């Protein structure tokens, strides 16, 4: 009995745990230590600093990169029930490189940088062709939408609920799908693999 229970809980843990092996920043797409524009040679410094951090964006973790001041076109559609606003909180931080308006080498109070993101990683300031972010995803939204799981009671597949594991203060942000530090080692810095569209189907009840 005991062995059976242990086996069962082991199987359950392995089966549902997405983060099988801990990955690291080092060697990831966000490891800028070897990039030509990063004269510091450091990984973390491009975004973070332990002292005199930029506190203009609320809850920004010891922020050290120039923040975007662009105005964004947000996503909207006839079938969307959520209400989006200008990107805020952590999404604003991501867009500070990924909107293509701020030089990636403008960190640590440096200005005049000349390297910008282009191609697939440049989301741009038109977010109308991107998954909506910076909106509240709560039980009320799930109830109206009918195509979304209740975030408070549905498992994320990462050990707890959608709300706990994927939302930031009940908001959907870039960090809902992406782990900026490559914690899971899944391509495109995803938190959950999109094999069989499992990431999409975590929240979308289709």
């Amino acid at each position: 009995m005991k062995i059976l229970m242990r086996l069962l809980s082991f199987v359950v843990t392995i089966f549902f745990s997405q983060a099988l092996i801990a990955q690291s920043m080092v060697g990831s797409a966000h490891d800028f230590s070897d990039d030509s524009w990063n004269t510091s040679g450091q990984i973390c410094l491009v975004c973070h600093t332990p002292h005199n951090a930029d506190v203009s964006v609320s809850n920004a973790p010891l922020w050290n990169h120039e923040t975007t001041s662009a105005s964004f076109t947000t996503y909207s559609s006839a079938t969307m029930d959520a209400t989006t606003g200008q990107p805020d909180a952590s999404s604003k931080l991501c867009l500070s490189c990924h909107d293509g308006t701020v030089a990636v080498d403008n960190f640590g109070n440096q200005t005049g940088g000349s390297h910008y993101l282009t191609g697939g990683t440049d989301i741009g300031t038109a977010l109308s062709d991107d998954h909506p972010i910076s909106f509240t995803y709560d039980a009320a939204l799930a109830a109206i939408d009918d195509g979304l799981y209740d975030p408070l009671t549905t498992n994320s597949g990462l050990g707890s609920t959608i709300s706990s594991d994927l939302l930031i203060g009940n908001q959907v942000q870039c960090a809902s799908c992406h782990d900026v530090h490559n914690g899971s080692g899944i391509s495109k810095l995803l938190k959950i693999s999109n094999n069989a569209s499992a990431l999409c189907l975590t929240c979308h009840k289709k």
Partner: protein
Amino acid sequence: MKMIKLCKYIYIFLLLTYSLTYGQTVVNSAHNLSVSGPGSISASSETEICIFCHTPHNSSPRTPLWNRDDPGVTYTLYSSSTIQAEPGQPDGASILCLSCHDGTIALGSVLSRTEAIDFSAGISMMPAGRSNLSTDLSDDHPISFIYNSGLAASDGELKDPASISGPIHLENERLQCTACHDPHKNDYQPFLRVTNQYSDLCLECHQKDGWENASHKLSAATWNGSGTNPWSHTSFSTVNENGCENCHRPHSANGNQRLTNYLFEQDNCLDCHNGAVAEKNILADLGKVWKHNLWATDQVHEPGESLPVQNKHVECIDCHNPHKATDQTATAPYASGKISGVPGIDSDGNPVNTIQYEYELCYKCHADSPDKPESGISRDIMQSNTRLEYDLSNPSFHPVEGPGTNSDVPSLISPYTKSSVIYCSDCHASNNSDADGPHGSANYPLLKYNYETTDYTTVTYQAYELCFQCHDYNLIVTNESTSHAERVHKKHIDDARTPCSVCHDAHGINSDQGNSTNNSHLINFDTNVVRPSMGASARLEFVDNGNFTGACYLYCHNRNHNPRSY
């Protein structure tokens, strides 16, 4: 204690598995085009499901996060002579669906990949079949049009969109594919939002007058397996379950206008009305020599055509309204349920939207129309306009519009009396058939019973069987009790072997052409047999001198009547 722990573990396991199990979802539907998809069309190795339509970044400008190109083609749109809506080139959600379903873009061609996703079984575009609508949408339910209260009001048979139920879903007041289909959910094949059993889906918007009581809505009749399967395009097996789909289909209809299953009007009816589904075999009657020939024309009939009919044609739909027809019986002259809801011409010659009387239906073509069938008998007074023949002010007429003028008709067989009214279809109907109505008969001209008109016919019951349905054989043919009976009927019909039709016009004589002295009792001589009399005051004339007395001026069977009286 151990039991509780066991239950706890099982509960957690089940809870965790529940979040990953799916009911009817896109994952177990034919829209899962990934390698794990259950349908016959699937990628050879791609595991992502949503990618065939959606991408989270750098999508098409089209919502929702669309991952496909626009087809960029011009479509042939649905149109008909009866549509009120104004479909435009597909837009909104419809253009998204068509990016696979028109067969012009490879299924695996998505914006987020530089190479098209590979499919197994050599599939690239949507294979030919029901899912490939092509760019010709003229045979498909109209889409991309505004459906608002104004449209409902001008159409007259559409629900106001404000009262349409939840599952049906207009997009910015426009009807798109997504009104009826939910691309993620295949609860009701194929991806319908509401089942179409009993045509529940169609009826969410369409409200045909009279449908609630119509036979096509209510009948539980099934197909007996012979002939063509009338329901090869649905999964239902009774008339009522098929409802609208008995005659219509929303996609790839062969009859483009009004989306009928077949192009030729009668084909829509005859897969069932041949005894294989409907009890009575109308097709067999329509195969008889003298018929309303449905096959003589096709696509000449127009719904709402101006009346009286100007371009000679006949289709089932000229006499029957399949949305309203019921099996309710009626007594003459009232129209029965089988022909209810059809336009006609009234006794004054004015069009009516819905007939009240059976004869109003026949008058649509057999009264004031040009090119109508003429009588095969040349008579003293010729008239092919039946409305003028049956006018109630005429000197004599068979009682079709109302009771006849003759107050004394002793030959009538019970229950017929001098106050009786009869139907056109009491005489004009199919012979040897359990089906009512003038579909086709072996007897000229589409008569239910035999009616000889050739001179020198030996009298039998069978020779003038039509007349003897209402007029007693013995009282007419063998009776000698009065001068009239002996010298007129028995002598002419029996001894002289003269048919009824030589003296009597079966319809009536119009008051502008005849009068009550010369044309009472339906007297209107067959001029191929009867000539004017010879000698002084020679003429062709019958004179009614009162009850069972009269005189004839004529020459017939080598006998001069100048006059002969009774």
